[in-house]
């Protein structure tokens, strides 16, 4: 470090009468490249001498004294002396551009012919196409009120897009039912396989643990009254009516909803969706409907599976830690859960399936045409799906409560 700073060269202003510039040659022993600039006043002109290695890792001499020299004296012309110039790269060219811009502002002519031919070539290229004044992105600060207006506008736009998507979907569904649009049967089977059996391991794990957690949470309170037996009621009702469906839906929105958004988004980027349109295939019917159908079919089944897993998880805790026999637990569960509880769970889960497929496919279809847009589509598919799921679940729970079922 000290070695480097020791060799740093700076601005050298020679005597105004000097005919030969003082050359600052890099010492032979040092490793860090050095460079220097000096200005020599001549009659109505200034000779700027460049010396040393003007490379990116060199320490740059300050330009201001040279600029000051140009400004303070009645100078009409700048000429360059480059006899001592060593290696150079963008470091030198950017400094020269600054210098030349400054000179042209002050109305001082610059004799570019005195520069090496290759630098002249680069400078010509740089100035060949004038800078587009309006091309720089507007980075003006917006006030919070403006930001509010903009984001409200965006929210309105988003809801509009959502409505349009749902509308198109409904039209396509009817067209498919009437036989005017189709999707491939084998696609449906593929999607069912993708979102059904392949999701079992994670659904198993999560549901077992949720059942286990429910049992523990309930047990802490219920054992205060010696009512551990009611853990069975809590777990079985909790799983069938709420948690089984909700957890499955959240797993599936992360697993399948994001996948749908990415698949369709990538197809959009590759203009595969345009290609479908030119082949007279409705992308809604061809891509969205089979995915949605697959989820509607699979979700209740997964939900049933999750319910059972949850009850097993809860049973494990109850039997092992809270002095309830397995027979008692199963008996209690059987008497607590009615068919209607399962049905409520199924209905909820089908609705969640529709919502997951809807948000996944919608974000995919709205995807922009870049790699990062596909990523955004995946993210926003999951976020949208989870918001929809939780809102829908609350609404349905309230309705069930009001109806007394």
């Amino acid at each position, binding site marked *: 470090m000290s070695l480097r700073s020791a060799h740093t060269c700076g601005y050298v202003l020679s005597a105004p009468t000097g005919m030969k510039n003082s050359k600052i040659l890099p010492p032979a022993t040092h490793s860090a490249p050095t460079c220097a600039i000096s200005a020599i006043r001549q009659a109505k002109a200034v000779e700027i001498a460049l010396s040393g290695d003007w490379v990116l890792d060199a320490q740059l001499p300050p330009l201001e004294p040279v600029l000051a020299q140009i400004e303070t004296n009645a100078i009409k012309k700048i000429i360059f002396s480059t006899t001592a110039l060593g290696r150079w790269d963008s470091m030198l060219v950017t400094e020269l551009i600054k210098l030349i811009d400054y000179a042209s502002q002050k109305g001082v002519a610059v004799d570019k012919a005195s520069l090496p031919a290759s630098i002249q070539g680069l400078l010509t290229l740089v100035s060949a196409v004038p800078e587009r004044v309006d091309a720089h992105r507007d980075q003006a600060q917006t006030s919070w009120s403006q930001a509010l207006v903009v984001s409200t506008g965006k929210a309105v736009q988003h809801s509009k897009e959502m409505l349009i998507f749902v509308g198109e979907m409904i039209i396509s569904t009817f067209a498919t039912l009437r036989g005017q649009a*189709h999707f491939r049967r084998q696609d449906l089977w593929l999607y069912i396989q993708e979102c059904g059996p392949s999701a079992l391991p994670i659904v198993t794990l999560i549901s077992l643990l949720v059942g286990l957690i429910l049992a523990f949470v309930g047990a802490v309170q219920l054992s205060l009254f010696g009512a551990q037996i009611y853990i069975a009621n809590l777990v079985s009702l909790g799983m069938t009516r709420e948690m089984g469906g909700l957890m499955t839906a959240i797993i599936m929105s992360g697993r399948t909803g994001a996948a749908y958004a990415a*698949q369709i988004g*990538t*197809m959009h980027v*590759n*203009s*595969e969706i*345009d*290609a*479908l*349109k*030119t*082949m*007279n*295939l409705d992308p809604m019917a061809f891509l969205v409907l089979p995915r949605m159908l697959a989820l509607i079919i699979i979700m209740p089944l997964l939900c049933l599976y999750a319910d059972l897993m949850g009850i097993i998880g809860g049973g494990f805790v109850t039997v092992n830690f809270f002095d309830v026999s397995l027979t008692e637990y199963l008996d209690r569960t059987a008497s607590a859960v009615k068919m209607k509880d399962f049905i409520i769970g199924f209905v909820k889960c089908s609705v969640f399936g529709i919502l997951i497929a809807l948000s996944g496919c919608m974000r995919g279809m709205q995807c922009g045409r870049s790699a990062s847009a596909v990523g955004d589509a995946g993210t926003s598919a999951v976020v949208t799906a989870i918001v929809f799921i939780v809102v829908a679940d609350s609404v349905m729970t309230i309705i069930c409560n009001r109806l007394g079922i």
Partner: protein
Amino acid sequence: MAEACITVKDLTMTYGDFVIQHDLNFTINRGDVFIIMGGNGCGKTTLLRHMIGLKAPAKGDVCYGEQGLWQADPKARQQILARTGVLFQSGALLSSMTLAENVALPITEATLLPPKKVREIVSYKLALVGLAGFEDYYPSELSGGMQKRAGLARAMALDPEILFFDEPSAGLDPITAKLLDDLILSLSSALSATIVVVTHDLDSIFAIGNNSVFLDAETRTNIDGGPPQKLLHESKHPNVIRFLNRGDQTEQNSSNRQMRSPA
């Protein structure tokens, strides 16, 4: 007098408020190999999207014969477009399906042929583009040139009267590009189809085109048109001359060009 196949009438194309091209007027005759040329970003591909029904015009229309594509109701539009095939720039094969499934897709959609017959047609189309035996490959397993040829097989699946190509030579090496050009030419004569090519590849323009339109990026309209060879020598528009001479305006260059493309 050749029969008009596609007539573009007063077509104005916009993205939002931004006008890309305005008041385009030209006619594509039956049997033409018609080139839509122009510099980057002048709206060639956008024009193509208007012609194949993917983007609605701000003004004007694209007429197939007497029928306006955008005035027609959706059903009639589908019938018009059923007579066309499109090869997209990237091929746009559905990546989740094999080549055979890709080519079969438009056939099974439009007809009720038995699967065996569909398979026969698919093999024939793939053989036409030199991909016999690649039926069960996925698009990602093929090179860029092969993907384009497979896309061409799909575009030709229903023996369309009009074939559209979006930058067929983009991203291909000169030899592969030349082979694709030759393929386009031989298909044009064998199928007696009308071919519309969006390109800025000069070699392709002179090798295959017998009629063209030039979209100018400055004035934002079609300033000239006609057989490319004739344009090269007789165009009165400096932009057209410069484009066809690769930015050069010397006689030397244009005579070189002539020698390279005797067609």
